[in-house]
């Protein structure tokens, strides 16, 4: 099962990097979303899959799931949600102001000299 998950993570990262390297701002943002999905899935896999019981202290349960990766993912999901919302608004604002969503067209001239 870990192998399958590793492939899924790898696929997500691949798609994310492909999208981030494109020019369109919206594709880049979708790429960052996929990147964080891949990272979250990786945390889950790295914590070790398996465990049949919920991580609650009870008589006779020894094979329980690791709760920490789930807590970490929950935190990371909330953060990436906030960041994605922010960058979407920023991209829209930049589109209004700069009249383009193409990152190469956005690049103005150099800063000085």
């Amino acid at each position: 099962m870990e192998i399958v998950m590793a492939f899924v993570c790898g696929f997500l990262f691949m798609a994310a990097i492909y999208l981030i390297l494109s020019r369109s701002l919206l594709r880049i943002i979708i790429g960052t979303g996929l990147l964080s999905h891949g990272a979250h899935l990786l945390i889950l896999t790295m914590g070790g899959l398996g465990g049949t019981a919920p991580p609650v202290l009870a008589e006779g349960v020894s094979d329980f799931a690791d709760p920490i990766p789930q807590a970490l993912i929950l935190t990371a999901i909330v953060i990436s949600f906030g960041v994605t919302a922010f960058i979407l608004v920023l991209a829209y604002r930049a589109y209004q102001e700069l009249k383009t969503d193409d990152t190469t067209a956005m690049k103005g001239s150099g800063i000085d000299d």
Partner: protein
Amino acid sequence: MINFLLFPILITFFTGMILIFFQKNIYLQRTISLISLGVATICALFVMLKVQRDGIQSVTFGDWPAPYGITMVADGVSTLLVLTSLLLTFFITWYSFGSIGKEREHFFYYPGVMFILTGVNGAFTTGDIFNMFVFFEVLLMSSYLLIVLGGEKKQLRESIQYILVNIISSALFVITVAYLYSIIGTLSMADIAMKITAINQPGIITTIAVLFLMVFGLKAAIFPLYFWLPSSYAAPPIPVLALFGALLTKVGVYAIMRTYTLFFVHDIAFTHQMLLIFAVLTIIAGCIGALAHFDVKQIIIYNIVIAVGVILFGVAQMNFDGLEGAMFYLVHDMIIKAALFMLVGIIVYITGTSDLRKMGGLMRKYPSLGWFYLIAAFGLAGIPPLSGFVGKLLIVQGGFAAGNTWSSIFILASSLIVLLSVIRIFLYAFWGEEGQTVQIQEKTYKQLYYPTVILVVISIAYGVGSEWVTPFMDSAARVLTNPSIYIEAVMKGAQP
């Protein structure tokens, strides 16, 4: 168990929230932020004195025993940095009264500053690696706000790049923590250090060390990963630039310092040698940038990169002198960079341009500004008895002691380039024919001038009075050179 060490973080956090309610009342916002920053600074000072007297203080949330709960640790390193960042923000906030502009003040500039400080101080204080990620995100979110606040075309363009770089580095941070967790099975930094010692750092941990260097190096702007810094930092207005330049990269440097002295200390021949090479390359890249530009902001921004290299060179020596020097230089650099950005900001406001070639002859009208700039520039380059000298001396001593003779000499030589790059600003802006100036009000000038001058005076005092600072630096360097002090204090101090 002491809750007091949380005060510097909590005060700024709650002030930020309160300020949001007074969006329209600028004067109230200004007063509240200055008062709360002052109070937080005093609290930080008390925490530092307490740590100096009674040793490392820690608090574990929810009364969980040490490795299970999230720990906040105040040791010599973190208290010094917390105090410095609060002190600097006090002056930068004061400086913003005259320079940031009403529009930005109306749209949550002060809450942004408060939240960024919460994140920075949290990241300095936390004793849990995932919690550090959370505090990094707190400071990054507020830095996104501050960098784009105002919505100028240049800001929008550069902030997209800045945010993207940071999203990717945050994803890498999470991935690295996941790798570490899969091998070590814990997130408490003291516990991680203990377990890595127990398994004697196999190759996979060294790989993780390299990944951590990449993650924190992106934030600290070390050699191959500093590409985003110059253009992004030039976009926001001067007070924000001063805040970023003084605090943000230093958080990355602190994180490298912490992980490379606490976790990855068993394969120094590889990890610290690599750090040393990157540090030297960072200095070279920074020197080239600092000499190449005619834009005053860019010159000082590239000096950030150089300073990061010098501090990491001290860390890479991994001996007492090198680390004490790194701490000395880190605090010095935070103060002097804030002061320099503020001075350069005044020059930009007076002349209305940041291009050196259009400036000139300011010495006639603003002589005291010129002399204070010269002092700050000498301090940056490390001319004794100013503040950069002690740090660099100790770093180079550490370098010689560790047998890195040539690279230590190189560090000394790089000081000359630093001096040249900042003196160039002095020559172009203050000497020569009178260049372009714009009318600025006497009151505004004073609002910019006083906080800057006080900060320069503080930096002089830090250099001249380094004798009094030394005990604090000693205890910081002791914690860094001897991780067992940190581990024992955290494990013992957090017992219920």
